[in-house]
């Protein structure tokens, strides 16, 4: 199985002009690969480096050391359009008040494939419509995006990323605004896309259980370095999670799927943590 992404000894730090906390934020030497066809989850507390990692992978930021390769080519050698043909990002949301229709927005996903063209082709339109159908927003095609609900917008943005026909789909907190039903649909959709089209998926999420359920492997980041990289049952481990997140958890095995399920020990309010159900 080939690698879609290879990250080798990548380090990064923001320029000193923006100190964020006591010491400036920095990514230590990260090394990992993303195998073709896998679903990789990226986890970690806030400021662990998840968003920075996405920005490095999409050339928004340049690493201060180390290399990143996409499909065997160094990311520095790929133009933005070439990179966008391979990697699509589903951000958390779109800017407020966008006047474009759903169809117009999804069509923007076709831009990297023919940047010089002024208008999209009939083929582009067909691909866009297929993507809209896949995410269930086809009947909203002529609706302005700004009138949609949060959940509908999320699906539109996902459709745009799918229209890009990428090798790697990066999702940044995809279920953040979705209610339960749409979370379930999102998981189903991602699985379908992964299996039917062989799209590799990189999922950044706060939702440990979603990640544990959906992903083939998990990458746990803390303070800019890799705490562990492995299968969900190896990464979602009580002691490790407690040390990374700084709170007590209990991990069980789901009776239905055999995947790990994380339970947080919520505080009782009188200073003691409730003892987790054993």
């Amino acid at each position, binding site marked *: 199985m080939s690698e879609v992404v290879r990250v080798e000894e990548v380090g990064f730090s923001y320029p000193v002009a923006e100190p964020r906390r006591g010491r400036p934020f920095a990514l230590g030497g990260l090394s990992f690969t993303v195998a073709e066809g896998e679903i990789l989850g990226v986890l970690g507390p806030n400021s662990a480096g998840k968003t920075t990692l996405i920005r490095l992978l999409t050339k928004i930021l340049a690493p201060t050391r180390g290399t990143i390769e996409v499909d065997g080519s160094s990311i520095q050698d790929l133009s*933005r359009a070439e990179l*966008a043909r391979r990697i699509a990002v589903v951000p958390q949301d*779109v*800017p407020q008040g966008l*006047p*474009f229709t759903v169809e117009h927005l999804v069509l923007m996903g076709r831009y990297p494939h023919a*940047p010089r063209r*002024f208008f999209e082709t009939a083929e582009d339109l067909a691909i866009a419509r297929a993507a809209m159908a896949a995410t269930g927003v086809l009947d909203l095609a002529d609706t302005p995006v700004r009138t949609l609900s949060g959940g509908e917008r999320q699906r539109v943005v996902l459709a745009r990323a799918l229209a890009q026909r990428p090798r790697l789909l990066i999702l940044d907190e995809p279920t953040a605004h979705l209610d339960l039903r749409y979370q379930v649909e999102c998981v189903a959709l991602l699985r379908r896309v992964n299996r039917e089209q062989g799209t590799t998926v990189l999922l950044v999420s706060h939702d440990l259980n979603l990640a544990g359920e959906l992903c083939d492997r998990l990458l746990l980041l803390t303070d800019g370095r890799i705490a562990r990289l492995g299968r969900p049952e190896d990464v979602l481990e009580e002691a490790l999670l407690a040390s990374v997140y700084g709170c007590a958890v209990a991990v069980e095995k789901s009776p239905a799927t055999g995947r790990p399920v994380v339970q947080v020990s919520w505080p009782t309010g009188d200073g003691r943590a409730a003892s987790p159900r054993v």
Partner: protein
Amino acid sequence: MTRVDRLVLVLGLLGVALLAAVILAVFVGSARLSPLAVIQALTGGAGAGSTESVVVLSLRLPRIAAAALAGGALAVAGVGFQALTRNPLAEPAVLGVSSGAAFGVVIAQLVGSGGAVVDTLKTTAFGFGGALVAGAAVYLIASVHGGFPVQTLLLSGVIVGIFFASAVTVVTSLVDINRLGGIVHWLLGNIAPLPGPSLLIFTGLAALGFTLIVSQARELNVLALGEEAALQLGVNAERLKLQVFVAAALLTSSVVAFSGPIGFVGLIVPHILRMLLGPDNRLLVPTAMVGGGIFLLLADTAARNVVAPAELSVGVITSFFGAPFFVYLLRTRRGVL
């Protein structure tokens, strides 16, 4: 219908409207020529040195051309600048370069006419010089390491604009009372009949600015998603911003240098077009070129006819309709980018 068809249809309709406006403008004027006289002048039937010929060919037609060009240039600059800053209230004047150009022209008028031939060109050259200085200042103030943030661009443009506007006020307060009237009137914005060479230069500059913006129209659509998202979709956002900024500055400075500062066209025309055609810049930029021309041509025709033989500054007419329009926009919050 496909986007291409729609664009062609709208451009066709606007083209007809422009033609109608031109015909109207060529037949009315304070010289009160009969329609027959105008036709004779147009077809070469009147003598070369006759009043009709001079009025129609040397005064009305050049002025009509200048008005259409200036209107189109300002409208295109408006579309580009609004897309660039993702702000529907942005106007080319906010760029700061029009105040710089105004300052340059006021200095030129103050320094007095040198040789006879270079008079108009010198004024224009000074105007461009002022615009260049202002534009460079805006760029330098706004750019940070590796980028050109849009919010800073807006603020920087406003600051530079205020600075040069104050400089203009200083100059007018110091100037000889006899010149004051001329300079004050110029600052209101006027379309003058430009001589042939000037018209050619103006057309060339407008065409250049238009091309720079229209070629990026699709990218400007993508930019609306936010810079980070646009970068991730393959758009070279930094280059795009710089190119559109330069083009908008070029268009605005040309208009100021040749016709003085004319406001509101770059705000009103894009909004009306957006309400009619939607937010796709690939439709807006070309139609703005024609629609802006129609708008300013009609305004200028009104300006030179309503109080004939005296004239109003065209800037007065555009402000007269512009200010209430602006209020309407704010109140209804329609015409969002």
